[in-house]
């Protein structure tokens, strides 16, 4: 730092603390409310202090709701999304950067186009396609039967996998890898595959980890697509289940502690991931912007 401590620094510190407070307060209130009984909350409003009912409310989440199986769904979908994106975008970005394609830019533009219009914007037609993925082949006149991927794990993950962000990020990363490494590998007698496996993959480990974390979180927190693409409660993801829990009980008085306990439970896995893999996540986000 160039000058000494000033009032400017004190203001900066104040801003940071306000930001931290703004982020933590809702999570804190959710957790604290989850530790009170429904009656208490209806009588005295949201809670700032811990109460005695946290364990009881969490147990209710596990016994009275579908959240446990839905969390399993979220885990499967998030893993599928993250693994699928990592593998596919690694291969795609590798071909784009290292295989000297004459029409590489066209392929890149094709894939990059998907970034402009996320699935949430085109959810209606995507749903129609997912309910019969053989439609385009049938349109070509091929004799294929109808296959619906609605209400399957793979169907929940696919639109997120068919997306260009991962390819874009890894392409940016590959372009920072010195091309002389590829030339050196070629001189050492390595072919493209060998270079990819022996040199590029080990070098990409941090970038892939970052991409994985980012896409796992994305897969876990997606809402609109899993909402429409799952028709039974047992196929819904945890976030959808939580939202249904909060909005479907219109007739009864809302059970806020149960909702808050569920919200805390659902967010536990991704938040733990963030706490542990913090630096990968930050690097991943920074990679989005070249």
């Amino acid at each position: 730092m160039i000058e000494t401590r000033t009032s400017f620094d004190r203001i900066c510190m104040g801003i940071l603390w306000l930001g931290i407070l703004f982020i933590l307060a809702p999570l804190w209130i959710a957790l604290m409310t989850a530790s009170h009984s429904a009656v208490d909350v209806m009588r005295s409003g949201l809670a700032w202090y811990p109460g005695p009912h946290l364990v009881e409310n969490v147990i209710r989440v596990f016994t009275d709701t579908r959240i446990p199986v839905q969390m399993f769904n979220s885990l499967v979908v998030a893993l599928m999304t993250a693994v699928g994106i990592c593998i596919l975008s690694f291969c795609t970005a590798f071909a784009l950067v290292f295989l000297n394609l004459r029409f590489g830019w066209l392929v890149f533009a094709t894939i990059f186009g998907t970034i402009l219009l996320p699935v949430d914007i085109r959810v209606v037609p995507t749903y129609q396609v997912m309910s019969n993925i053989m439609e385009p082949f049938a349109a070509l006149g091929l004799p294929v039967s109808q296959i619906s991927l609605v209400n399957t794990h793979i169907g929940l993950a696919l639109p997120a996998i068919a997306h260009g962000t991962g390819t874009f990020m890894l392409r940016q990363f590959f372009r920072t890898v010195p091309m002389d490494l590829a030339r050196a590998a070629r001189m050492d007698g390595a072919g493209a595959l060998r270079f990819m496996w022996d040199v590029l993959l080990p070098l990409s480990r941090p970038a892939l980890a970052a991409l994985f974390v980012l896409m796992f979180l994305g897969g876990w927190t997606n809402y609109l697509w899993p909402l429409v693409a799952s028709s039974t409660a047992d196929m819904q993801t945890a976030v959808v289940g939580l939202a249904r829990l909060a909005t479907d009980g219109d007739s009864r008085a809302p059970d806020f502690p149960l909702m808050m306990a569920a919200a805390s439970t659902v967010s536990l896995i991704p938040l733990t991931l963030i706490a542990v893999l913090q630096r990968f996540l930050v690097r991943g986000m920074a990679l989005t912007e070249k």
Partner: protein
Amino acid sequence: MTQSPFRSRPMALLFLSPLILLTALFFYWPVAEAIRWSFFLEQPFGGESTFVGFANFRRVLSDPEFWKSLKLTGIFMVTASVPAVLVPLMLAMAADRGLRTSRIARNVLVWPKGVAGASIGVIFGFIFNPFVGILTPLNQLWPGIWSPGTDGVDAFITLIVANLWNGIPFNFVILLAGLQALPDTYAKAAALDGAGPWRQALDIRLPLLAPQLFFVLVLEFTESIINAFGLIDTMTRGGPGGATTLLVYKIYADGFKGYDLSGASTQTVLLMIFVLLIAAAQFLLMERRVKYER
């Protein structure tokens, strides 16, 4: 850039085809289908669809509900994006000072990345509940002053706050990375020129951050209207009285609750055009103003 020494068309084809196939099937095909359906009238419960030309567009474009929801989408884009960029900007500039607090802040401020919009919607829905929430004391002093259930403006505010909460991590990380990438020679030069920390922040760091700010703003415009769905569906359900029925929510409701496939497809096409136009306009307006040679 040096050319790669590898060249293998079969391998390229093998590596590229899976993702190309997937994007074709789950991106380009749906986009094409949306456009096709917008020219057909689809029967809600199956049966033949009939070509109707621009009838769907005439119907949608003459529907005041559509225009209202498009206007709300535009309003939300601006009113939600501006704080969702400005607040992270302030935080990033504060965190860039290398204070002890910034270590904690850099950790905590990315946490919302792990909390779905719908999840935080549930939580904020409770926090802003007029009867048991954080603003209840206000209602006891002035009854009815805070009522997101009946007041459209209040409902809009809850969405903006929740959207800000969700948008902090990404924008903060990008802006902070941008600030940290600035060579500190600029700060040294500015200090020698006699600029204090305030002037440095406003005259040096802010202008040099323009590329990142631009990038973040472009993404936030689209991101806000997408993220809004999870918030709307859990906090306001489009209400009160349609005051928070943004186009994403209206399309969902029309398509999946009203079974109006043609109407939903037509609106999808219009929303896609809207989003692309916004992106194009931003690029045209701002692109040439934010590039610096280093």
